[in-house]
């Protein structure tokens, strides 16, 4: 990997906004801006936040064997992945899954976008473009597939939060038409402009790919554009959104929001161990009863075998906002036994606890006298299956916190709400 730290096209703008910068995935990225991570996190729950995610890597594959290549490597079955009826992936739809090696260990997680027949975009994590491109190329030798790493040509801005639709309405050229049929995990436009998928333009004619996805658990969009356009896209959004409370957000808020939304961070919550027994089993192509997969793919046999033997990953929630350091040296105590390690531990500033019930600042049933200060939460990887409700103690050597395993974290998330309801 490149040892020189990279900067996105928005780097100078982040410094002007007073961002506190840090190295992430080989890029110098904002950790937080002057508002601070807490205010940024809360802005996404109550208004909207804007993130520079241009560090994410983007790969394009084209050619008549594209779909079969993806079917052989990607964990999601593209013939059964869209909507409640599990329809095939179609143009304008995207799917979440992982790329595994032959042992069923995760190389990276990804969103696969179908632009048109034989033409897909694959979004992977910062610094992973080269590795996943190599992986795809290796398995497509002799096939009719062209694999391209577009990472340095693409800019990306995420707008996340309940007001994201209203803000986008201000900057899109024809918002009503674009928003007409746009469910969760669908997208409009193709900034590469050499596909035939419907165009999506901002008011100043900048072509974008507008995706109803995100990494916060809240309603919102990811916007892809040419790298040379990303500063203009950021400025347009900022001008339109600032009066509505749109706040620039850094990686700290992104991390706490995604954890509260039960989303994994690749190479931390999923990684170099078998991708089974975790809260993200929907990313595997199980048939009914989880005894078989609906398709063959790289790592499938190892994964099926690992179901009985591999680690188990669970979400947990604490009693207050105090967290511990995650990492291999932090113990996970079940009674007197250390049964694993802490993968992620952050504070979701939007959660609070009363009488054993977790509320969000946006929960409609939140008790009036509950002052929400945040709750520690995250993921543990342990050596045995356990049920939600099991109490554990996490101990990083300096502090011990009591936590409870849970099936879900921040309530009242808005990611899947109907777009029309979010414009009202």
């Amino acid at each position, binding site marked *: 990997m490149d040892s020189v730290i990279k900067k996105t096209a928005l780097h100078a703008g982040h410094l002007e906004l007073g961002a*506190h*910068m840090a190295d992430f995935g080989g890029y110098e990225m904002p*950790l*937080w801006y002057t508002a*601070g991570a807490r205010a940024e996190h809360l802005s996404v729950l109550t208004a909207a936040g804007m993130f520079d995610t241009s560090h994410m890597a983007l790969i394009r594959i084209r050619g008549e064997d594209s779909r079969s290549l993806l079917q052989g490597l990607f964990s999601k079955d593209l013939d059964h992945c869209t909507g409640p009826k599990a329809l095939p992936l179609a143009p304008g739809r995207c799917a979440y899954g992982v790329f595994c090696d032959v042992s069923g260990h995760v190389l990276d997680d990804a969103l696969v976008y179908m632009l048109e027949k034989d033409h897909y975009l694959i979004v992977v994590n910062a610094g992973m473009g080269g590795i996943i491109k190599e992986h795809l190329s290796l398995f497509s030798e002799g096939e009719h597939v062209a694999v391209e790493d577009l990472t340095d040509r693409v800019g990306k801005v995420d707008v996340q939060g309940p007001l994201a639709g209203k803000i986008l309405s201000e900057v899109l050229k024809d918002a009503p038409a674009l928003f007409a049929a746009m469910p969760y995990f669908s997208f409009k436009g193709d900034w590469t402009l050499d596909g035939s998928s419907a165009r999506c333009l901002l008011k100043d004619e900048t072509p974008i790919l507008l995706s109803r996805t995100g990494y916060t658990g809240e309603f919102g969009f990811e916007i892809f554009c040419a790298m040379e356009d990303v500063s203009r896209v950021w400025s347009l959004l900022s001008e339109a959104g600032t009066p509505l409370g749109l706040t620039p957000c850094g990686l700290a808020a992104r991390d706490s929001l995604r954890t509260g939304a039960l989303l994994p961070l690749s190479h931390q919550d999923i990684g170099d161990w078998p991708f089974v027994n975790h809260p993200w089993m929907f990313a595997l192509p199980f048939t009914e009863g989880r005894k078989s997969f609906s398709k063959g793919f790289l790592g499938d046999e190892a994964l099926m075998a690992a179901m009985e033997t591999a680690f188990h990953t669970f979400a947990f929630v604490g009693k207050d906002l*105090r967290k511990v350091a995650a990492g291999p040296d932090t113990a996970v105590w079940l009674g007197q036994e250390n049964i694993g390690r802490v993968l992620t531990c952050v504070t979701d500033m939007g959660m609070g606890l009363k009488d054993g019930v977790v509320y969000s600042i946006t929960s409609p049933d939140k008790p009036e006298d509950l002052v929400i200060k945040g709750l520690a939460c995250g993921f543990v990887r342990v050596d045995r299956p356990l049920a939600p409700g099991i109490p554990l103690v996490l101990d990083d050597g*300096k502090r011990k916190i009591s936590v409870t395993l849970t099936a879900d974290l921040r309530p009242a998330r808005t990611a899947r709400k109907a777009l029309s309801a979010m414009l009202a």
Partner: protein
Amino acid sequence: MKEIKDLVVPDNLSYTDAHEWMDKEAVPSRMGITDYAQDQLGDVVFVELPEPGTRLEKGEVCATVESVKAVSEIYMPVSGTVSAVNTELEDRPELVNSSPYGDGWILEITADDPAALLSLMDHGAYLDMLKGL
């Protein structure tokens, strides 16, 4: 992130290399964390304070300051007894960010040997240290 020129480093305080400040004139002497420290930590969300009356050696952990980024330990700048703690921080930990030398003070310490305070850095030495980071 604040530039060095934007950091507040009052000239009437003493400093440690762990980015703590201590009032060298008053007895007992107040201490807290510096503007640089709070800027690096980000939003302070919780402060754990010791019981007043606790006697601690120089370098021992006397409090923890938890931010969005990490849980950081605060060390005794000199040996002495904790004579008071800033209980306001229990409800308003963000004072450490907004007023690190004022309302965001953390402890008051009665030093075993008041002369020990002379071993701490003055504001010039601390600024030089920051410039070298």
